[in-house]
Each structure stands twice: as structure tokens, then as C-alpha cells.
């Protein structure tokens, strides 16, 4: 060891890993080695490149040394000069032992990834799909009612009151007429309840148990009653396919598994939600296309233009842009442009068959529906939010 030309001597504590006795040993620091003399006179030479400092020690005024290849013996040096010289000159003081069992770790990691993927992407969805069909309607309704109240509370503004349900009688009547015209009853496992919530989000969704929610923002964004009818038909498609129930059951299965993986590290909840969103997106895209298909059929049968679904999306796309780039993977909706095209194709088919009939609402009824939440005067402001679903 350069810089240690003079020989330094001191005492130190050595434990040999065989007994709990602390041996008081004499140290001599030579240029290339540390000579340790035990009380019984036996001496050990620890070569400079064999010296390792035990990592992450709280007390750095001394030096806790191990010898490469010897997991048990420890030498605790408190002498300042030798500590300083060793820190300066020992060449491999902080070298780490090589990681053992790399192959086994990789094997288990692959096994864990495979088993978790199997559970999250295959077993849980398959079971959720099957079980959703067996859930009694009353159970589904309870699930939907609980979620409905959660949604109302979650969307409340600063006053923390749940979002109002809009119930202007003329508007409710117009909505009921629209529902009756669509006439999905024969496909539905249970009666549907449609509610309008007084919130300016441009959005609508279906909950388990046949609850469909439209937001005021969506009705205001629509230019024709047919566009609202198209969205309603799409949500009815979700109800018929029992998508909300599948979602809820799948969430129950997968959220716990994701919680296992991310553990409780700082802010892990965000990771958990993002990962869940990613998984959901994969299934929801299929569900959305299924609901669109159903809506096209329902609209054609009711003599309403399927293209209204497309024209509505088109306007949203002009206003908010198509979801592109990385955000697409997190988005639960397929690309709008594809949906617009599909709606147009359905429209062409319906026109060829001569199925397009009277408007869904009269002008007065359409006005009533637009004021179902009471008169609104700030229409232009209401669509500032980005739609999350429709």
C-alpha cells in the first residue's frame, strides 16, 4: 500500500464466527497486508486486496472489516490512523461479492410473471365473464346502486354535496320517449334506469344492474336528439352485454393481485391504478366495439340513424383530438376514427334497407331534454372538460 511506508500498530476487536468471544488482537499495517496477531500468538495475514468494508455501517469513525471469501470473521478497527490509511489505500474495500443464483432468480421471476399474467389476463377475466352471467339481478342492482352513489360523491364540487340528479318533468318525459323508441327491453336482463347527472363532463356510462348515467355536459354537446339517442343505445349495449358487472368482478380479482406486486412503497397506489387502467383498457376496447355494434342494430331497428353515433364522435374528435401516442394504451376506448367509420357503414346499410324513420324527439321535447337540469345560460363554457368516456 503506497503512502503507508511507516508501520502502524494498534489493537482491534476480532470475532471469528465460531464463538461469541471478542478477541483483542494486535494489528500491524504493512504496505501490502494487515498482520493480525491473536492473544494466543497465532497470526493471520489479510492481504490488501482481500479487505472489504462491511457496507452501510452507522459508525464511520472506525472500520468494520471482513475478509474476501470469509463470511463470518469480522475485524472492528477503532484506531484512527489505520482506519484512514486503509480507507485511502485498500484497493477493493467496497467491492461487492458477485450475485449468486442469477439463474434461479431469473427462473422464479419468469414464473412469477407467467403466473400473474395468467391470473390477471386469463383466469380472472374468464371467471368474471362467466360469473357475471350467474349473478342474480338483485345482486347486480345492489352493486350498481353502491357505485352510483360513489360516482355522485366523487364528482361533487367544492361543496362536497353529491351531484344532483336532474328531474325536470318535461325532460324526464322526453328521455322516457327516447328510451321507449329504442325499445331494448327484450334483450335486457332487467329493467333499465336512465338518470341525468348535473355535471358538465361530456360523458355517459352504464353501471351494473341496468343503471345508465348521462351527464348534462353530454346532452349540451349534442346537436341533435338523435346523437343522445345513439349514445343511449351504446350504453344499453353495455347493459345487454353485462359489461359493467364483468368490470366490477374483474376489478375485485385483479386489484388485490396488483397490490401484491407493487407492495406499499411510497405512493404505490398511483402505480396500482395505472396498471389496472392498462389492463382494463385491453378488455374495454373489445367491450366498446361490442356496445357500438349493438347500438347500430338497435338504432336501425328503431328507425334512427346509426351515423349519429359517428357524427357525435367526429365533433368530439375535432374538439379534443384523437387519442394518440402513449395515452392510447391507457385509454379504454378504441380509436374514435374507427368507430366513426363503423357507424357510417351501419348508416349505409340502414339507408339501403330504407329503415330511417321519423326524428326521435320533437323540437319542443328536445328543448325539454336540454333543460332537464334547469335552464342553463353558460352553454359555451360547459364543454371545457376532456371526455373520458362517452
Amino acid at each position, binding site marked *: 500500500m503506497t503512502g503507508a511506508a511507516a508501520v502502524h500498530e494498534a489493537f482491534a*476487536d476480532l*470475532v*471469528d464466527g*465460531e*464463538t*461469541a*468471544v*471478542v478477541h483483542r488482537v494486535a494489528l500491524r499495517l504493512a504496505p501490502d497486508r494487515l498482520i493480525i496477531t491473536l492473544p494466543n500468538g497465532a497470526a493471520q495475514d489479510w492481504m490488501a486486496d482481500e479487505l472489504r468494508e*462491511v*457496507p*452501510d*455501517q*452507522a*459508525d*464511520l469513525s472506525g472500520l*468494520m472489516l471482513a475478509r474476501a471469501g470469509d463470511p463470518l*470473521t*469480522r475485524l*472492528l478497527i477503532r484506531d484512527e490512523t489505520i482506519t484512514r490509511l486503509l480507507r485511502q489505500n485498500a484497493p477493493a474495500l467496497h467491492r461487492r461479492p458477485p450475485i*449468486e*443464483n442469477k439463474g*434461479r*432468480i431469473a427462473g*422464479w*421471476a419468469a*414464473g*412469477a410473471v407467467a*403466473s*400473474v399474467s395468467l*391470473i*390477471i389476463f386469463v*383466469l*380472472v377475466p374468464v*371467471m*368474471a365473464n362467466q*360469473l357475471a352471467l*350467474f*349473478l*342474480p339481478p*338483485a*345482486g347486480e*342492482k*345492489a352493486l350498481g346502486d*353502491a357505485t352510483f352513489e360513489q360516482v355522485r360523491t366523487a364528482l361533487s364540487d367544492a361543496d362536497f354535496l353529491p351531484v344532483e340528479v336532474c328531474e325536470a318533468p318535461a325532460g324526464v318525459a322526453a328521455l322516457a320517449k327516447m328510451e321507449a323508441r329504442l325499445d331494448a327491453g327484450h334483450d335486457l336482463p332487467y329493467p333499465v334506469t336512465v338518470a341525468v347527472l348535473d355535471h358538465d363532463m361530456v360523458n355517459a356510462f352504464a353501471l351494473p344492474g341496468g343503471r345508465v348515467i348521462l351527464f348534462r355536459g353530454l346532452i349540451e354537446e349534442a346537436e341533435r336528439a338523435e346523437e343522445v339517442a345513439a349514445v343511449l343505445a351504446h350504453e344499453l349495449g353495455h347493459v345487454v352485454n353485462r359489461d359493467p358487472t364483468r368490470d366490477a*368482478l374483474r376489478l*375485485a*380479482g*385483479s386489484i*388485490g*393481485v396488483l*397490490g*401484491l*406486486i*407493487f*407492495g406499499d*412503497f*411510497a*405512493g404505490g397506489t*398511483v*402505480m396500482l391504478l395505472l396498471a389496472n387502467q392498462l389492463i382494463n383498457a385491453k378488455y374495454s376496447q373489445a367491450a366498446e366495439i361490442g356496445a357500438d355494434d349493438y347500438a347500430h342494430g338497435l338504432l336501425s331497428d328503431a328507425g334512427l340513424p346509426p351515423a349519429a353515433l359517428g357524427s357525435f364522435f367526429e365533433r368530439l374528435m375535432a374538439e379534443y383530438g384523437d387519442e394518440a401516442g402513449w395515452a392510447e394504451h391507457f385509454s379504454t376506448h378504441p380509436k374514435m376514427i374507427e368507430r366513426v367509420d363503423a357507424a357510417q357503414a351501419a348508416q349505409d346499410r340502414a339507408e339501403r334497407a330504407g329503415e330511417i324513420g321519423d326524428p326521435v324527439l320533437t323540437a319542443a321535447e328536445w328543448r325539454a331534454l336540454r333543460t332537464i337540469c334547469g335552464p342553463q345560460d353558460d352553454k359555451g363554457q360547459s364543454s371545457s372538460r376532456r371526455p373520458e368516456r362517452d
Partner: protein
Amino acid sequence: MALRDLTTDYAGRGAPMFRLALKTGVLTVLTLGFYRFWMKTRMRRYYWSAIRPGGQPLEFTGRPTEMLMGFLTAVVVLAFYIGLVNLVLMFLSFSLFKGEAPAYLLSFLGLVPIIFFAQYRARRYILARTRWRGIRFGLEPGVKGYVWRATLWWIATILSAGILWPVKTFELEKYRTDRTFYGDARFEQTGGRWSLIGAMKHVYIAAALIGGGIFASTMSDEPVWLVATAMGAAWAVLGLGHWKAESFKRLTEGKRLGEVRFRCHPRGGRIVGIYLLGGLAIAALLFALLFALGMAIGVLLSFLDPELIAEGFDDFASLAALPAWLATLLGLVAYFSVFLFWGVLREVFITMPIARHLAETTEIVNPDALNAVRQRPRDEFAEAEGFADALPLGDGI
């Protein structure tokens, strides 16, 4: 010649702990949580080496890779249980009870034995990877007995409205201690089943005051009785500090290691003080951090949109001047830094001062008997503490 009793030095310091906890915490966030095995190992090495009975530091010899392995094992086993069982429970709960509460309850109850299992296995791993004076600690296999005992004692504790908590604490500690080794020497927990009841007395008094106050004020319609409730709440804080110190003292002094004994004199007031002052310090620093973040955002905004200063900052709509990616980034930074600093500051201002106080007030009596202790073989224990790591058990340092 009898050696002097060994007092315990504590070498942990705030600044290095802050740096270590922050560095490993940031790495954990950046690696989406997978650095946490390295973080835990490094933090433990530090905490262990800070405790120096008779001047000789403890050493934690666990390796992050074995914790990772244990975690992977646990994930493979638990994922099936948690995924499929929870799904079926949710289905049954809505089919039969029209609500989700029974599912959560059953799912949790099903996990309880696994949690006890994980606790015992985690203790075994930690002891097997702890050395002092070159000699390993160890815990005998015996997880089955622990799981049913823990289940029964927890049921008894809940049925007794918490009165039997000290008995449960003693019984479970005795089960673990009687199976704990230092080298080839076995520990023994002495003191009777009821020996911790006295340590809980102030908590009982506080509970009686709180309950009595509420009862009297409801019955007599005189709100003045609520003063007793308020007194009880303050008493409970001090009482819990007393419980923590006194139960630690009684359990430690009740331990035997052959001829070796322990003496311990922690103070409840000191523990309450650490929690209160530490809590205040953490709150103040977190507040300062949020304030600094807010200032940074304000400065940024004034560069991007100078008119905003003239208009005044009314509500969060003014944040719209920020580009979306920047707003997202700032939000993520703020979110993670609050969690991160909360964890780091808790180590510095609470966990470490408590560890220091408990260490510095503990002595080893008759230490020459230690010289007869021989090494025990290494406990390979491949699963490490995977189950405890996968389940949200809190930190069992």
C-alpha cells in the same frame, strides 16, 4: 472475575440516515418499487450496525436478492389466492348479501392466518440474518403453533374489547422468544401470562375516563362530563407511551439467555416526547416542502404567462397556462415527494430516536456467560420474508 454489565451504545445519526433513506427511497420510486428489497436491506444494515451492546455492533447479513426471491415465491402462491378467491367472494357476496362488505370481511378473515404465518416467517428470516459478535441468532421452525395461538389470542383480545391485549402480547412474545437462539444458547421468556397487565394500567384508566365521560354526559344530558372524556384522551396518549416503554422493559427483563440477564429502563415520557416532537417536525418540514413546490410552480407560471400576475391567481384554472406534460410532471413530482419525504422523515424523527432510546436504556447483565456461546449453522431459508413483503404488514424492523 465477573465482567461489568454491558451498556449499549447507539451510533445512528440523523444526517446519514436522511441521506440513505432518501437515496434508496428515490431509487425505489424510479424502479417502480423493485429497489425496495435493496432499500430494506441497506436500511436494516444501518439500523442494526447502529446498535452496539458492549461496543460491538449488530450486523444484518440478509441479501436483497434472497428477499427478491422470497417475494417472487410469495407472489406465485398468493396471486392465486388473492385473485381468484376475492373474485369468487365478491360474486357470492353480491349474489347472497346484495352488498360488498361481506366479501371484504371474508377476504380479510381468510388472509389473517396467512398474515400470522408471514409474521413468524419474517421474524425467522430476520433473526437468521442477524449477527452479534460473529454469532447468528435464530428462530426454530414452529409457524403452525404460532398461527393458531395468534388466531386464538386475537379472538380473545377482540372479545374482551382489548382488555386482554397485554396477555396476547406476552403469550405471542413468549412463543417466539422460547424458540429464539443466540448461537447454540436458547432464550427463555419468564414472567407470567398476566405480567404485562400493569404496564397497560394508564390506557385502561384513559379508556374508562373516555367511556365514562361519554356515558355520563349522554345519561345526564350535562355536557360538562365531556371534560372527563377530554382528560381521558390526553391520558391515553401518555398511557400509550407508558405501555410502549413499560411492556418493552418487562419483556426484556423477563428474557433469559442461559446465565445472561437483561436490564432495561426506558421512559414512557421520552417516547411520547419523540412522537409529539417528531410529528411536529415532520409536519413542519412537509409543509415547507409543499410551500417550496408551490413557489416553484408560481415562478414557472409567471415566466410562462406574465399576465397572470396582473390578473391574480384565482383558482386552479389559472394553472391552465402550464403545458399538459409539465403539469403532469409537476403533479407526479409533488405526489411522490410527499410520500417519499413522509417516509424518510419518519425514519429520521421517529423510528431512529425510538430505537436509540430503547437501545441506550438496555444493558446486558452477567455478560461473561456469553463467552461460552458457540456458532449455530446457517438457516438457508430460501423464502426469506416474501410473504410479509407481499402482504401489507407494515414494517417489522
